[in-house]
C-alpha cells in the first residue's frame, strides 16, 4: 500500500508543454487584471487554470484549487515567476495524494511574494531599466527612433529570459529551491550586490540628468560681476545644487512623508517660485 503511494507521488503529469503554456499565460496576463482588492491574485489563478484542470479530475478539488489561487497575491512578476513554478510543483504532488495542506501552499505564496518582489524590483526596475534607458537617452535626444525601440526590446528580452528561467527553476526544485536559495545567505549577497551596483549607477545618472544651476549674478561695483554658479559653486563642489536637491527630496520622503504625489507637488511649487524669480534654472 505504502509503496504505491510513493510511486504515485513521484509521477510527473505535467509536461514541458503545459509548463510553457502556463508560463506564457502568466507572462501575458500577470498585471492585466490588477485590482485594489486582489492585485495580481486573479491573474495567478488564470495562468494556472489549465494545469489545475489537468491535475484535479474531481470537480470539488478543482474548485477549491481555483479558489485558493484567485485570492490576494502580489509580487514582481519577473522574479516572482518562481512562485507559480513552485506552486505548480506543489499542486502536482498534492493532486497525486501527497498530504500537503492548503495552508502550506497559500503560506508559500504569501511568504515568498514580498521578499521576491523586493529583489525583482531592485534588479529589474531599479538596476536594469535605468542603465538601459541611460544608454539610449542620448540616441533619442538626437531624434532617432532607435532610442525608443532599442531599450524597449532589450528590457523585454532580459526580463523574459529571467522570468522563464525562474518559472522553470521554481517547478523543477519545488519549495526546496527557496530554502536552498534563502539559506547560506546567497540571496542576501545578491541583494547587497544589486544595491551597491544600483546606488552607484543611480549616483552617476543623477549627476548626468539633474541639470539645475543658479543664474544669480551679483554685480558688485558695476564693473566686476560675480557669477555664483561658475565662480563659487563649481569651484567648491560641482553639482552641489543637484546633490542638495536629491538629498532634500530623499530626506522629505524618509522623515516627513512617503507620499510621492505630495513630494511631486512640492517640487513643482518650489520650482515655480525659484524658477520664476530666477533663483535657479
Amino acid at each position: 500500500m505504502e509503496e504505491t503511494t510513493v510511486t504515485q507521488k513521484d509521477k510527473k503529469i505535467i509536461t514541458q508543454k503545459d509548463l510553457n503554456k502556463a508560463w506564457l499565460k502568466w507572462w501575458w496576463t500577470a498585471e492585466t487584471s490588477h485590482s485594489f482588492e486582489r492585485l495580481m491574485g486573479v491573474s495567478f489563478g488564470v495562468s494556472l487554470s489549465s494545469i489545475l484542470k489537468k491535475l484535479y479530475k474531481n470537480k470539488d478539488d478543482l474548485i477549491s484549487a481555483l479558489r485558493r489561487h484567485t485570492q490576494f497575491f502580489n509580487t514582481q512578476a519577473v522574479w516572482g515567476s518562481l512562485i507559480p513554478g513552485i506552486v505548480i510543483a506543489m499542486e502536482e504532488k498534492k493532486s497525486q495524494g501527497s498530504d500537503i495542506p492548503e495552508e502550506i501552499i497559500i503560506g508559500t505564496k504569501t511568504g515568498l511574494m514580498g521578499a521576491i518582489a523586493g529583489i525583482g524590483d531592485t534588479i529589474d526596475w531599479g538596476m536594469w531599466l535605468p542603465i538601459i534607458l541611460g544608454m539610449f537617452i542620448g540616441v533619442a535626444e538626437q531624434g532617432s527612433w532607435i532610442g525608443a525601440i532599442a531599450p524597449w526590446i532589450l528590457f523585454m528580452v532580459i526580463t523574459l529570459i529571467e522570468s522563464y528561467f525562474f518559472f522553470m527553476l521554481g517547478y523543477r526544485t519545488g519549495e526546496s529551491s527557496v530554502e536552498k536559495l534563502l539559506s547560506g545567505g546567497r540571496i542576501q549577497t545578491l541583494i547587497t550586490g544589486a544595491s551597491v551596483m544600483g546606488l552607484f549607477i543611480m549616483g552617476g545618472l543623477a549627476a548626468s540628468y539633474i541639470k539645475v544651476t543658479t543664474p544669480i549674478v551679483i554685480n558688485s561695483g558695476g564693473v566686476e560681476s560675480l557669477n555664483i554658479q561658475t565662480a563659487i559653486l563649481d569651484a567648491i563642489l560641482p553639482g552641489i545644487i543637484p546633490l542638495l536637491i536629491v538629498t532634500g527630496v530623499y530626506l522629505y520622503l524618509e522623515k516627513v512623508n512617503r507620499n510621492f504625489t505630495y513630494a511631486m507637488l512640492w517640487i513643482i511649487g518650489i520650482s515655480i517660485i525659484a524658477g520664476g524669480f530666477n533663483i535657479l534654472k
Partner: protein
Amino acid sequence: MNSNSITLIQAILIGLFYWFKGTSLGYTFSVFLGFSPLPASLWVGIVLGDIPTAMMVGASLQMMYLGLLAPGGAAPSDPCIAALVATTVTIVSGVDIKAAVALAVPIGLLGIQLNNLVFMINGFFAHYTDKKVEEADTKSLFRINVIYLNAIKLLFYALPLTLLLYLGVSSVSNIMTIIPDFILKGLSLAGAMLPALGFAIIVGQIGKKNLLPYFLAGFFLIQYTGIPVIALAMLGLFLTYLHVTFTGNKTEEGV
C-alpha cells in the same frame, strides 16, 4: 503642421496606444510604457509624421521619469499619457519642448487617476471571476480576465484620450502660447528638478544606509569625468565584486 489640430483617425490611433499600455498585456512589453515615455513619443511621431521632434520630446520627458518606480504597483505618475499629449501638442503647435515637458507633469499626475479607476473596475471582474470559479469554468476565467476586462479598458483609456486630443489639442496649443514667462520658467525648472524625485525614491527603496557612499561615488565620478554610462556600469560591476567579496561573511551573518 499648420492646421493646429489633428484628424480623428490620428486621435484614435494615439488613443489606442494608450489603451495598449493600459491592458498591461505581455507584462514588461506594455508595463515598460508605464515607465518610459519614449515608445509613446515615437508612436505619436509616426502617426503625425514627425519622428525627430517626437523623439526629442520623449528624451526630455525620459530624463524626468528616469527614476520612476512603482512600489507595490502604485506608480506616482503616468509617463505614457504625458508623452502622448505633450508630443502631440509640441508637433501640432510648435511650442518650445521645455514648455511641453512642463505640460506633461500635470497630465501624468491626472493620468494615473485613470489607472486607479481601472484598478477599481477590475475588482468587479474579480467577483465575476469568483462566480465562475464556483462552477469550475476555467475557460471563462481566461475570457473574463483577458478579453472582456481589456475590452472595457477601451472606454477608460482610449476613449477619453482620443476625445481630449481630437477636441482639445488646438485649445491646449493656444493656451501654451499665452502662458506667462514667469510660470514657463518655473515649469521648466520643475522639469529639471523632478528627476531628483525618481532618484530619491530609488535610494530610499534600496534602503541600505551603509551603502549610500556608493551613490556619492557614482555622482561625483560622473560630475568630474562625464564618462559614458557603460563605463560607469563596468566600474560598478567591479566595485560590486569587491564589496561582495570582502564583506561576504558579514552579509551572510546578517540573514
